[in-house]
């Protein structure tokens, strides 16, 4: 029997008196690519923060790799890219290599220095996102799309089994968004990394994802991408809260 990488059982969360998440149950398995979609204020980022341990659920349980989140010690098995990554201090004096290598901090362990092997692993992570030739460049000199690739490389440096991304394409131009999603597709299909992606770009991403979860305070749909596509636009519009028309693209269009 395979262990779920993420298992949420009946998770609820309240901000003071208002309910942000209402009885959420969700399972993310090995090698799956989940798109978590929903309108603004639907609780997507709150749910991600609960999964990452930044927020405590009001009720319900969260398990990561089969362990309760409180006792889960192997954080290096999870890579994380936040929507805030592209709002980092661009005047920070750091090279691409230094930033990506910092993704290995936990794996290397306290009081130890980075080894040559760690540097090699850093360069490999950069090569996966096509940024190895930028290793010695200052972070502030890169474009938004390039910086976001660097943050993905930082998340990949620790060789995670699960990549969690919270709207990573915010602030990136449309052309770079398509190539970014194509890279995620490669990470999932060729490297076997499970992905949980929070996004607004429902058309683009639901063609790539293997599974879709639709959230608006509660989960309105979760399941395979093919079943999501069979849903009527009216159903999606109802839980989205406004009219939604989905335009399905073929995978190879995105990959181009």
């Amino acid at each position, binding site marked *: 029997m395979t262990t779920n990488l993420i298992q949420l059982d009946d998770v609820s969360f309240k901000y003071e008196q208002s309910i942000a998440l209402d009885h959420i149950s969700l399972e993310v398995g090995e090698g799956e690519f989940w798109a978590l979609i929903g309108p603004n204020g639907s609780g997507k980022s709150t749910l991600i923060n609960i999964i990452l341990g930044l927020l405590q659920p009001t009720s319900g349980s969260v398990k990561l790799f089969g362990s309760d989140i409180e006792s889960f010690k192997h954080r290096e098995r999870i890579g*994380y890219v936040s929507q805030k990554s592209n709002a*980092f201090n661009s005047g920070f004096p750091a090279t691409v290599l230094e930033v990506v290598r910092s993704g290995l901090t936990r794996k290397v362990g306290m009081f130890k220095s980075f080894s040559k092997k760690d540097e090699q692993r850093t360069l490999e992570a950069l090569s996966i996102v096509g940024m190895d030739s930028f290793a010695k460049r200052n972070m502030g000199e890169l474009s938004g799309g390039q910086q976001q690739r660097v943050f993905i490389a930082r998340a990949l440096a620790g060789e995670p089994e699960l990549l969690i991304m919270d709207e990573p394409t915010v602030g990136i131009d449309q052309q770079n968004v398509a190539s970014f999603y194509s890279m995620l597709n490669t990470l999932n299909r060729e490297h076997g990394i499970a992905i949980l992606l929070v996004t607004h770009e429902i058309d683009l991403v639901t063609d790539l994802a293997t599974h879709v979860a639709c959230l608006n305070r509660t989960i309105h749909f979760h399941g395979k991408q093919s079943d999501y596509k069979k849903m009527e636009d009216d159903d999606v519009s109802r839980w989205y809260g406004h009219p939604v028309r989905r335009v399905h693209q073929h995978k190879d269009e995105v990959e181009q």
Partner: protein
Amino acid sequence: MINDILSYEFLQNAFLSGLIIGIIAPLLGLFIVVRRLSLIADALSHVALAGIAGSLYLSQQVLFFAALNPVYLGIASAVGGSLLIEKLRGAYRHYEELAIPVILSAGIGLGAIFISLSEGFGSDLIGYLFGSVSAVSRQDLLVVIVIAIIVIAYIRFLYKELFALSFDAEYAKVSGINSRYIQMVFMIIVALVIGASMRIVGILLVSSLMTIPVAAAIQLAKSFKSAMIYSIIFGELAVIIGLVSAYHMDIAPGGTIVITSIVILLVVLAWKKIQGGRNARIVKGELV
């Protein structure tokens, strides 16, 4: 000058302490600046003032304190202040910066009370406020050496964690780095460096040595490591030039050290501007 240093113990103490502080203050200052915590050093130095003034006042009232080096109480109050700042930052999660002016005001307030209550310790206090070439004792030098060892060991062994925390605190927390513990120790280390530096640079100017050399360094550095090296070079330059000129002019070294670092910063900014203009002309094809 070299002969004087070789002949007089007080000059040896001052120069050795200065050279060590010129390394550790900007080294730690780099982490303070990139984390946008520059004012914390100011707040803690004012808390150290309360400790120094308190110790000087108590030395007039209680025999035990007459024999105690005021630097110790200065360091102890700065460490206490650093822990209080952390506590207050936790209490005001949405206004974390509020902790800094609160603690800074408390430091000045307590300092003013002790200074007013005392029966005058003019020259002693001036030395602590603006630094002194002649007042650094062997005991002070020893304190500086011990603190330098602690600071360098802390940065050497927690460099990875400090970098990750400085670059992206949220990511550091998510990736399982014990950021609370590292932050707490960081604040104590900042307080120790302030304690170590106040004899030479003075309480009121100590934060400048932690921030101005770094301000110049980040203008030039492409990497974090090079920012560290530039910060130390600029810090050392400021301390050496500042101490030598203070000795020759017979004035407080704090002022000359800080003004030297400001001059270094201005030179770096001017050089960057000239370079920027030159690069723009190369792009336009006016220069080859």
